[in-house]
């Protein structure tokens, strides 16, 4: 379980517009270097905020990432 990796990635997506743009264009490439489990990586690549929340991503982050927020 790498809750830190999941949440630090979410935080970066929220606060770093350049990284967010890269993620929007090619999620798999943007998270390629992140220390994620296979299921975490799959959830990010699918931009599946519900799954990311299930895997330990903090609710307020998954609800507030510009352009990717779950409502």
């Amino acid at each position, binding site marked *: 379980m790498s809750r830190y990796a999941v949440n630090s990635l979410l935080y970066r997506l929220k*606060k770093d517009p350049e990284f967010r743009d890269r993620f929007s264009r090619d999620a798999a490439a943007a998270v390629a270097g992140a220390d994620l489990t296979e299921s975490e990586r799959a959830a990010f690549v699918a931009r599946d905020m519900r799954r990311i929340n299930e895997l330990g991503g903090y609710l307020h982050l998954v609800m*507030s990432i510009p*352009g990717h927020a779950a409502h």
Partner: protein
Amino acid sequence: MGRIVFGGAMSHVLDPDYYERACGALGRQTVVAVMAEIARMGERLSARQPDALIVVADDHLNAFSFNCVPAMCVRIGRRVQRMAQDHAEAFDKVLDHMPTEYPLHEALANAILEQGMEAGFDLALSWEAPVDHAFLSPVNTMHGTRPIPPLVPIFVNAFVAPQPTARRCFAFGQHIARVVAKSPWNVGIIATGGLSHFPELSLPRVGETDTVFDRKLIHWMEAGEHAPLQELTADELHKTGGHEFLNWMVLLGAVTPARADVRYFGELPRINLAAVEWRL
């Protein structure tokens, strides 16, 4: 000798557009109603001419991320900035049109911090942490176009387990009351957040609340029964979506044994909106 001249607590996403998107026309109508009560609370606060306003609230992983999550943090310094967020979504959007900088009451913040350390509260301090909607939405709703008194923002970690206990938050509030009593200032204090929403911080459960739990809290606050509130556990707060009640526990410690008057309580599918004021 200083005095706490006002004590209040309220929900902290005070944005009709947000609640209309989340809950339709009823959402807008309910938040407009709670905002009207909060504005009236602000008029009563201003009438007492406070030298400072302490705001006890939580961070939503904006000021503090994963470099450090303090259990309780006193924001010191001379000024505090509004959180910056490009293309803000959801609850962050409420900040968009608010002033970007606010004066702090440096001497009161330092007194709470320094005397707190001497009294055994291992408080964190920050000169740089910005404040998000949890602080600024209530403060701006209360004051409208009137001047905002110098603030003392106090952060409580409501969301990142393990959180401080309800009992410890209450004890910290009692400490604040002692500091104010020894000071020369008239001080207002508000706590923000809640009531019940986002149980277990689970996305599929957004839209659920625990009104039975909230009514129990309200009953104890109205009756001035603060002992059972100190028994609240982290597990209970997590399951009921009562995380932000920890902020209210600090306020309760500061005003105990005062009784509360509920100015507004409105149920929505997403959250129970509330505004409460204490008889001081």
